């Protein structure tokens, strides 16, 4: 009798415990998932639809006579609000600096054209341009060693073409890779002045051939002998790479971009 009572009591307790167990396990499984913020660029500017009866004017490729910011602002005060920057950890710092009003950023540490085309770090970056009109690209520090100069340039061409395939109306602006400090020149494979300069020269040629703009950011960051100025470098120590910029370096970069604006729709005489 006593045994029967004990079994009955145990049964009641277990019957009560089972639904509690199930609900606790279900809660643990669902609470472990967090919504990762997406890297998609979201814009809330009003869309303006225009019927295109004629082909839009194509930009002249390469380096051109750009407009300074005061004139560019008059023509389009939202110039940088319509611009997305694709880059690596160098551009991540630039994003943090935040000197360009309204600009968007798709920048990731260790990113490069090799990773971009392989979908590593960020998949299908060409799908996340949103309604931006301009794509500014600075990549290379993570490509020169794995792909070589010609490989990195070929990758850049492929990446730009994929962006244009998906977003046919965007304008491409290729930024030169930033220079390296003298202390780090050549320590890490092809991350050295000679290779970076050759890479940038070939990027300029690529831009000219394809009617893409080219922005020589490196020109305002270098010493007379072509190295990144120490005061513009944020990782110039023994364990650093000598490539990432300090806030003063970002300030100079920002000023350069503001004073080198262009859009083919601007009627400049």
């Amino acid at each position, binding site marked *: 009798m006593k*045994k029967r009572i*004990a*079994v009955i009591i*145990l*049964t009641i*307790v*277990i019957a009560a*415990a*089972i639904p*509690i*167990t199930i609900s*606790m*396990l279900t809660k*643990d499984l669902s609470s472990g998932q*967090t919504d*990762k*913020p997406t890297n998609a660029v979201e814009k809330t500017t009003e869309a303006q639809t225009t019927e295109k009866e004629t082909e839009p004017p194509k930009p002249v490729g390469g380096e051109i006579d750009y407009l300074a910011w005061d004139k560019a602002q008059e023509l389009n005060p939202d110039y940088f609000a319509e611009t997305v920057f694709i880059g690596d*950890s160098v551009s*991540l*710092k630039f*994003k*943090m*600096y*935040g000197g360009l009003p309204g600009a968007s950023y798709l920048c*990731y*540490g*260790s*990113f490069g054209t090799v990773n971009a085309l392989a979908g590593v*770090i960020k998949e299908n970056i060409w799908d996340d341009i949103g309604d931006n009109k301009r794509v500014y690209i600075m990549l290379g520090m*993570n490509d020169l060693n794995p792909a070589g100069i010609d490989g990195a340039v070929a990758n850049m061409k492929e990446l730009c073409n994929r962006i244009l395939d998906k977003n046919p109306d965007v304008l491409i602006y290729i930024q030169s890779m930033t220079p390296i400090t003298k202390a780090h020149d050549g320590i890490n494979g092809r991350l050295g002045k000679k290779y970076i300069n050759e890479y940038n020269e070939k990027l300029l040629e690529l831009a000219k051939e394809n009617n893409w703009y080219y922005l020589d950011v490196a020109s305002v960051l270098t010493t007379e002998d072509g190295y990144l100025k120490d005061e513009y470098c*944020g*990782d110039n*120590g*023994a*364990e*650093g*790479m000598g490539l*990432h910029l*300090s*806030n*003063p370096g970002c300030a100079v970069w920002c000023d350069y971009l503001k004073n080198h604006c262009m859009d083919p729709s601007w009627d400049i005489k």
Partner: protein
Amino acid sequence: MKKIVALLLTLLMALSLCACGEKPDQKVTAPKGDEKVSSKSLDAVYSAILPLIEDKDIMEIDAERITELYNIPTEDVKEAYIASFTIADAAFPGEVVLVEASSEDKVSEIVELLKTRLADIKAQAESYDPVSSKLADECTIEVSGTKIAYFFADNHAEMSELFFN
């Protein structure tokens, strides 16, 4: 037979007790009981921390940029202070983010976004930036009530002390 049934029922009960346990979150330091509570205002904490980084190429960032930089909605934030600075030899910039959530139920969401930030740094830095990668492992998110602190810095422990004391 009765013994077998009793044994099975006992095992089931033991299983139900195990399901009630929670794993501690190692990336978040939250005070329990009367330990480590931040009684200072965020403004006071921020002012105390600034001298630790003022010679490190510091840049104070408008709190309005919290959504752009950390995906934290501004409506979830009552007050915020953000600064970035250079960590020697690191590719990733140092960061100080102090947030007071608009309500208690927003705290966990903000913490998750900051944890994602650390995880992203870790993933992106691992192959080439040992300084940032190591810091991403060490740094934690501090919580006291609706106040949240995120220090991505080589002196993050010192900053955490200033947050709580």
